[in-house]
């Protein structure tokens, strides 16, 4: 399917475990973003990527690792999950030639850390 997809949609994990959230887009957009959304905080940027093999930190990067070996994929890894990382995670993408204000968001992954 065309667009931006995230997997899994729901995940429950235990404190201390490593977990990877996947993001895949079919548009070949250069820019990709990871956000987390918590009640009372809106969306906060975790990491972003301007192209394959180019990534940088956003507002709240601690405890997260990203990689981007292929343009279409941008996985987010929680190296050792903590309860404070319980959140809804959204991946987004934007075309380098497109409007800077228009990002396309995936459906989100709801992660619960017990």
């Amino acid at each position, binding site marked *: 399917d065309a667009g931006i997809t995230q997997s899994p949609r729901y995940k429950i994990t235990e404190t201390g475990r490593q977990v990877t959230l996947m993001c895949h887009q079919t548009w070949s957009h250069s820019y990709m973003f990871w956000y987390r959304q918590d009640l*009372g905080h809106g969306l906060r940027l975790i990491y972003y990527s301007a192209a394959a093999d180019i990534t940088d930190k956003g507002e709240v990067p601690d405890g997260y690792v990203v990689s981007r070996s292929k343009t279409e994929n941008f996985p987010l890894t929680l190296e050792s999950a903590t309860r404070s990382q319980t959140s809804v995670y959204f991946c987004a993408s934007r075309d380098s030639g497109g409007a800077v204000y228009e*990002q396309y968001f995936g459906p989100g992954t709801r992660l619960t850390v017990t």
Partner: protein
Amino acid sequence: LAKTTQPISMDSYEGQEVNITCSHNNIATNDYITWYQQFPSQGPRFIIQGYKTKVTNEVASLFIPADRKSSTLSLPRVSLSDTAVYYCLVADRGSTLGRLYFGRGTQLTVWP
């Protein structure tokens, strides 16, 4: 980046026009005003952007006064399906990254 301020929540009834006002007193010359919509259990979706005066598309209208220190998103004849959170953002059109800063948004609830 200019901070935005908007109401936390608004209520309306089906068929009414809804206007959501956003304040952005420190908006810079290069900033666009952008609105996103987020339905429950979905990612945000871009709905409209403008720089000055009025912009209209199939979803909404955006009114921006000459001083650009505020903007108003207008939703004509809302329906139950317009119940969502609406985010007002400013985005630097000179930016290559296009980083967006989401506040808490306005929860619009439409009642039958």
